[in-house]
């Protein structure tokens, strides 16, 4: 496959992610009805010999980055991000064997959960999707996660980063204990926090490395910290 054709194919993949075009059968978005989606195009790229790392880095991650930036800038909304993530997953399934063989590699491992006492998961899930779309292996511990569960996951994944989410003023106070527990066993692990009641001041006060009001900010922080 020529360089020009390859670049065009990778741009098509990026566009499918950005627009949330999962596969040819998907009616969404209406403007791309009947066209191939991320599912078919990633399979084609592999068949055509495009390197898995290029499919990931120059196609999937590019598309997810665009949607993350638009979401940060309030140009798109949650349904758009969810569809982009769905398209991303459709493409990623073809790359899974290459991650297992080492032909493609994640940027790092990101452990995320909503802190103990809190069951809100939308913000956490959006961050998970954007992180995965940004090239990270994401381990989602779910909601109502105790310090002990975070510590266990950190111990099992040396070199990981950690994301803590809380929506309530009543549960954000549980973050400090978790940050301390994580830092005690992995002082170098970057911990980023997010959620409605939080601020950068609060993040610093509890010993976290950063705070982000949106998923793209969390991704940018981890990329810059790497």
């Amino acid at each position: 496959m020529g360089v020009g054709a390859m670049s065009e194919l990778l741009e098509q993949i990026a566009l499918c992610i950005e627009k949330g075009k999962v596969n040819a059968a998907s009616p969404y978005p209406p403007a791309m009805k009947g066209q191939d989606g991320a599912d078919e195009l990633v399979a084609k790229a592999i068949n055509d010999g495009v390197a898995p790392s290029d499919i990931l880095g120059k196609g999937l991650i590019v598309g997810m980055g665009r949607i993350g930036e638009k979401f940060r800038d309030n140009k798109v909304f949650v349904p758009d991000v969810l569809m982009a993530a769905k398209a991303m997953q459709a493409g990623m399934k073809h790359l899974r064997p290459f991650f297992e063989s080492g032909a493609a590699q994640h940027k790092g491992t990101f452990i995320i959960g909503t802190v103990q006492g809190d069951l809100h998961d939308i913000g956490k899930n959006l961050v998970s999707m954007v992180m995965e779309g940004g090239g990270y292996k994401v381990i989602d511990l779910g909601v109502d996660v105790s310090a002990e569960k975070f510590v266990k996951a950190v111990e099992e994944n040396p070199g990981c980063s950690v994301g803590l989410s809380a929506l309530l003023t009543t549960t954000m106070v549980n973050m400090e204990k978790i940050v301390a527990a994580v830092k005690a066993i992995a002082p170098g692990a970057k911990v980023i926090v997010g959620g409605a009641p939080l601020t950068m001041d609060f993040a610093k006060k509890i010993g976290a490395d950063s705070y982000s009001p949106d998923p793209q900010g969390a991704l940018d922080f981890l990329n810059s910290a790497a």
Partner: protein
Amino acid sequence: MTSRERIHNILKRRPVDRIGVYEHFWGDTHKKWTQEGHLKEGESLEDHFGFDMQMAWVFNSVANLDFEPQIIEETDETRLVRDGNGATLRLHKLHDATPEHVDFLVRDRAGWEEHVKPFLKPERRRINIEGYRDVRRRAAEQDRFFAWAGVNVFELMHPVCGHEYMLMGMAVDPDWVRDMVDAYAELTVNLMEILFEEEGYPDGVFFYEDMGFKQRPFFSLDMYRDIIQPGHKRTIDYAKSKGLPVIMHSCGYVAPLVPGMIESGIDCLQVIEVKAGMDLLELYREFGDRLSFMGGMDVRVLYTNDKAAIDRELAAKIPVVKGRFGYVLHSDHSIPNQVEYASYRHFVERGLELGTYA
């Protein structure tokens, strides 16, 4: 002026003697303040603080009322249960917690049509008639404004299919979500008709409808108008046809949706969550001629328990928003137990002092 007259006027932005006062509390705050001896055993917060409103939440909207919850899996700490909405919930056995939604039978139109839609019948057994009657009587005894309270279509849909399937559905299959909106709006109106005709009308209607999170709504104003607004119009039009004013609550940042909510017919926006990005003064400047407000006082200031900081928060907002007679004092969400009784008492007293008209 009685509380009932005051809130009626506030919702129409007509002259009153003072701003209104009402509040939501996290469950353990009432318990803590009672244990500390500030409230008598069994004393209500409405009575204690002289709130102007009282509400009754009496509808059961679970789809299949006859479904016996099934235990799918059980551990020492949790129980995984499927409920009458076809949702799988994780219940905690060792501590009180809201159930965690794990999975849903309804992920698309087919699941909705099989597992939920056929069950949404306006049956009398969905209504806690006695509960409504009791709260209505107690409110009348104190001449308080009595509101029927319940959730509207957005909040009725997500227990059935979860936020993610619902929001993806709004993009991929909007007709499916419109059908859910129509069905839940119709169910709500039909149940209101049964209740109100049998037991009498409330003074107003209070819809809970969380449509935003930090710095953004879940969906765009265009999507609101296209998919959600028809349900809001159906339910609000019904209330208005009976002369009932409508207060709508939303957590999160919903400022971009406010023009659409006004088109739908709301009279008052509650709760104006500062920590999510909502700005009471900005909303007042932009919409204060068409809309009353309840809330918008930053609860993070209250739990500093610093009376000077509380005074500053009140002084920065109340003299402005009382301008058109359309304001009810309320925090920007709920009062947690970190707020000391004396701090909240001070908040109410100082707030009403600033909010009294000469």
